[in-house]
């Protein structure tokens, strides 16, 4: 009963509905933008929106294959053949590239795949395109997966990463769980979601704005005295307020997720949900499919939300005005947005990757790990543990804050 009324109190405020509406519109706009701006090309010109998506999916239908060593070798060979004819090759003074039908028929429909293959043979910090494929020697085979492993080793041993042996073993062991050969296919919708995750922090802020008055609103409105003198004012009522806040946060978060996932997946389709992340970048060590990766990171953002709700409630119980709570929450959530990591190691960077805004970015290919003695945990695990722990710590403090509140 108390939870129901506390939930109603949150929902009944006009400001809450306005904030939620704005946040949902913003989320819809931000996650819908890649759909609206989507365009692809063929010989006839540019194709935008759904027409472009339909064309691209049609092209990918032919590419939904396992990336076996033979398939990759054949693909590289085909590109190398195209480069052999001078009539197909252009030169901009810097690099060679295919032109005309050779490009439109031989490269354009599978350029993403060709870039993926080319990059697998690149050195760390090098970004190669299909036009580097002719330089590869594949006379005795592509050795794609051998190269994938070696490249990862090179990345792990890069001195700038300063990874310990235990950390290197951790990542190599994780990468060993990736199923090969990789299954290729269309995954645009999932890629849009993964690359836009941090935009959900606006939703987190909006939810915090709405629940900021849960305790401090009582002080501000002068209702604290009457509820705190009720039988359950210092006990069950606090539990109900916390439960209602989490309930509201969860429902609001789900609505945002429906939009954030729904728009790209409705436009691009759910294709690729069961494909491995490595078909977007072979340096990714996580043995996840796109769906698993999205679920995992969404789960982490949800844990961040719970911790932020916990922090908002704690501040709300301790501060006299919801506006003060909001000022602190905006700073907590968005200061990390203006801090840029300068690597993946050192206390500054490792802390930055755990702060609210950065935490929304999965950073699947950055090998961010934390070591405590012999225990190594990756960023996703540390984020999940940290924010679950913060939630558990904040709630009793928020409870105590309201219990000890003095009506003066």
């Amino acid at each position, binding site marked *: 009963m108390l939870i129901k*009324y506390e939930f109603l109190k949150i929902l009944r405020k006009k400001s809450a509905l306005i904030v939620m509406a704005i946040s949902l519109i913003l989320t819809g706009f931000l996650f819908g933008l890649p759909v609206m701006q989507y365009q692809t090309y063929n010989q006839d010109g540019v194709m935008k929106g759904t027409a472009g998506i339909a064309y691209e999916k049609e092209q990918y239908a032919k590419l939904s294959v396992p990336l076996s060593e033979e398939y990759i070798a054949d693909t590289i060979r085909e590109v190398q053949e195209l480069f052999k004819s001078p009539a197909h090759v252009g030169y901009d003074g810097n690099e060679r590239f295919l032109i005309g039908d050779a490009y439109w028929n031989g490269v354009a429909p599978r350029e993403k795949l060709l870039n993926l293959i080319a990059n697998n043979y690149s050195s760390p910090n090098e970004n190669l395109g299909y036009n580097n494929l002719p330089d590869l020697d594949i006379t005795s085979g592509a050795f794609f997966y051998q190269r994938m492993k070696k490249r990862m080793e090179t990345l792990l041993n890069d001195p700038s990463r300063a990874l310990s042996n235990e950390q290197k073993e951790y990542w190599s062991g994780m990468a060993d769980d990736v199923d090969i050969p990789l299954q290729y296919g269309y995954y645009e919708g999932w890629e849009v979601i993964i690359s836009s995750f941090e935009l959900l922090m606006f939703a987190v802020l909006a939810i915090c704005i709405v629940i900021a008055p849960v305790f401090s609103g009582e002080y501000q409105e002068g*209702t604290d*005295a009457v509820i*705190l003198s009720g*039988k*359950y004012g210092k006990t069950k009522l606090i539990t109900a307020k916390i439960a209602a806040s989490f309930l509201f946060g969860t429902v609001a978060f789900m609505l945002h997720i429906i939009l954030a996932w729904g728009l790209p997946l409705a436009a691009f389709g759910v294709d690729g949900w069961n494909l491995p992340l490595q078909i977007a970048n072979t340096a990714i060590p996580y043995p996840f499919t796109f769906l698993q990766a999205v679920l995992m990171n969404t789960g982490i953002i949800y844990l961040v939300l719970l911790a932020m709700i916990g922090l908002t409630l704690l501040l709300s119980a301790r501060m006299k005005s919801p506006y003060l709570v909001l000022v602190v929450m905006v700073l907590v959530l968005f200061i990390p947005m203006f801090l840029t990591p300068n690597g993946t190691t050192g206390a500054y960077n490792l802390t930055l990757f755990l702060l609210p805004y950065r935490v929304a970015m999965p950073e699947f290919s950055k090998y961010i790990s934390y070591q405590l003695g012999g225990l190594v945990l990756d960023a996703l695990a540390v984020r999940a543990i940290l924010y679950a722990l913060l939630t558990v710590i904040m709630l009793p403090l928020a409870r105590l804050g309201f219990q000890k509140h*003095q*009506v*003066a």
Partner: protein
Amino acid sequence: MELQLQDVSKQYGTKCAVNNVSADFAPGVYGLLGANGAGKTTLMRMICGVLKPTSGSIRLNGKTMEELGEEYYAHLGYMPQDFGFYPDFTAREFMLYMAAVKGLDKKRARNRTEELLHMVNLSDVADKKIKSYSGGMKQRLGIAQAELNSPSILILDEPTAGLDPKERVRFRNIIADFAKEKIVILSTHIVSDVSYIADRILMMKQGCFLLQEGMDAVTDSIKGKVWELLVDERAAGEYSRNYTVVNLHHENNMVRLRMIEETAPGGDAQIVEPSLEDLFLYYFGEETEK
């Protein structure tokens, strides 16, 4: 049922809001009188457990608030001064919410809500949002919520503040109805509010009790000190400057003065029966003038 205050004090920095107050409350209506800033609200908040005393203890039937926990609060009904409402709730929703806070089960919550809304004459507007209510309607809703759990201790802090005379009379009657067999502590600086319904008067000044007396004997301390005198207007000005004039009434070309003085202020001054208002002005005359 006995509520005991033992040497209760509340200090804010160097300012002492309530200073070593002790009192025993048995069922009955207690009028807590004092000028603004006398410490009435602070004392009531401490009794209601929403403000911690700096020292001293508050006991119900011999047990402290801490020992009793929820049980202590279950005995309480509190209507704070100027307390807020949830403007987007209807009166019925607010009452049901408060019933849940007070631990009433669903059925009793519904029954008490309807009963009390009827009693305070708000049944017809029970489904209207509180933001549309007048000050008087809000005050009536305030007392209704305080009575929801049929408390044995009812604390009402300035319940009639801001009400017009008609509303005040109606309010007094409601309080009198609720007061049976419970401890009602009613704070006010409007003397007439308590003079009709209080059994005992507690007079508070600068955080201390000046006086704790039954209604019948409360004015004894100024018996023989209240005088009335009929003088012309010029003399009235003179008296006002030199004596404690508590009331001044024009009668044709003359002025009837009511004064509180140890000895006869002169002329044809007659001793009259003291009232509660005389007593209040005797103690707080200077403060209220400020």
